[in-house]
């Protein structure tokens, strides 16, 4: 039987199998090797899982759909580097499940927004963006400041992240492992049994929303925004080392 396109197009079963084979090649070539290639995730110091408060802030970031307009991925182009800072590393989102890279930029990239503005700016800007940036099209999020943060399920949320491979510690042995990997100060914030205490303590200490009397969703979101892109100290990394990871 000679090959005829028609034989495939008129036979749904064959078409299905061949289509799946063709698509699988794309997946196998583009995705599978990344799991075996040692250069995929750069070996850099400083990247740690989010603290309980930052983690809840990230939940709110996702709940409010911030990713629909903001990416968290500075691409290695000069214009992006000039505007946003050093290009994002794979290592910087290795504890993100799911990652927030995105490709839709109605608003600016947020991968390195941490430390760029003051807490007060974030609070005012999230409540009423146009009051800070007149040309902004970002909607108002006034309820963040007035809604008390639900901290009751933070332990469960961290346990779920732990299953995906984020090194939150559930017992003493895991805690000790974290002390070795991240140092004692960070390891303490990753300990699930102390999560509520740690969350409230960070909100009190940081006073992100300017109101110490309660922990609001604004506290969590600003804490998250203020840590974005700040974990890796690029002054300690030679640029040519990162080149060799690609």
């Amino acid at each position: 039987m000679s090959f005829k396109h028609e034989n495939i197009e008129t036979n749904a079963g064959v078409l299905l199998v061949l289509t799946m084979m063709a698509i699988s090649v794309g997946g196998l070539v583009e995705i599978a090797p990344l799991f075996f290639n040692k250069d995929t995730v750069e070996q850099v110091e400083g990247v740690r899982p989010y603290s309980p408060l930052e983690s809840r802030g990230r939940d709110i970031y996702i709940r409010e759909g911030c990713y629909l307009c903001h990416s968290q991925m500075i691409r290695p182009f000069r214009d992006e580097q000039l505007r946003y800072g050093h290009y994002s590393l794979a290592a910087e989102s290795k504890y993100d499940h799911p990652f927030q890279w995105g490709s839709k930029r109605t608003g600016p990239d947020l991968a390195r927004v941490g430390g760029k503005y003051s807490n007060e700016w974030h609070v005012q800007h999230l409540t009423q963006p146009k009051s800070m940036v007149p040309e902004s099209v970002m909607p108002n999020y006034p309820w963040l400041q007035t809604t008390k943060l639900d901290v009751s399920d933070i332990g469960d949320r961290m346990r779920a992240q732990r299953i995906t491979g984020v090194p939150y510690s559930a017992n003493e042995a895991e805690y000790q492992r974290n002390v070795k990997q991240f140092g004692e100060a960070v390891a303490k914030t990753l300990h699930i049994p102390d999560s509520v205490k740690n969350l409230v303590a960070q909100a009190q200490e940081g006073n992100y929303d300017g109101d110490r009397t309660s922990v609001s969703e604004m506290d969590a979101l600003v804490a998250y925004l203020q840590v974005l892109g700040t974990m890796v100290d690029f002054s300690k990394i030679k640029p040519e080392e990162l080149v060799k990871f690609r």
Partner: protein
Amino acid sequence: MADHPTNPTTSQAQTTGHVWDGDLQELNNPLPVWWTYTFYVTILFAVVYWVAYPSWPVGKGYLPGLNTITYKNAQGQDESWHWNTRSKLLLETQEAATAQKPYFDKLAALPYDMIAKDPELNSFVVSAGKTLFSDNCAACHQSGGQGKIGFFPNLTDDDWIYGGSYDKINETISNGRHGYMPPFSEALQANQIDDLANYVATLSALPADVAKAARGKEMFHSHVAACFYCHNDDAKGRKDMGSANLTDRVWLWADVPGASDAAGKVAAIRKVIGTGVNKGVMPVWKGRLSEQQIKLLTVYVHELGGGK
């Protein structure tokens, strides 16, 4: 395909032989020749692309492609790596730095007051500074540097909280600032705060209740309210600690210009005395911006209008 019937009513076009509603037929024309060959060319292009650029995975690595990029490493020596977006960016960054080097070298070498007098360098500062300012400063201080009452200071007037000299501006950008005034709502009675607010209003020649202002003046300069600790006896503030000059009619925290009548203006002042100020935070830019960029921004901000 030749065994399919042709469409009898239109042309020589082939049909699939399916017929609906008696006369609806499905045409089965071959693809246009130009389309087919363009398709083959794209396949050929892909092969060339796979060879020229990093592409196919091989073992635990991948084909690096044919192109190499040569950049300078940290020791200043030439170093090559296969083409990728990171090596390309590194090279482009270094090339741009080389192109701008004469300007930045001159900027680093010249004292501040000489920079403004050098027309060529000054135009570099203005154009590069405008971009830096827009990307980093404008979100708070607004695009023209006019600031925002109640939040961020105006950089275009000649009132400087921490000092408007080149060195002080540089210090503010590099290390950031954290302004603080304690809240007086618990330490003082409401009527005492009202007295103080009336006195502060008179310092800026605003209409106020004379009797209240007199009592406020007493408190301001005594240990009852002790405002003079930070704002000084002359109420002109202390730039070393960022306490405001209360006599210059320039307002940052109290929205005095936004109030329509005298009572509203006093109320705005009263509010700030009661709640204090704990939001005068300027972020630290050292680390995020290079020393050269900060020096450039210093000159730019100084030239916005109010530099001392």
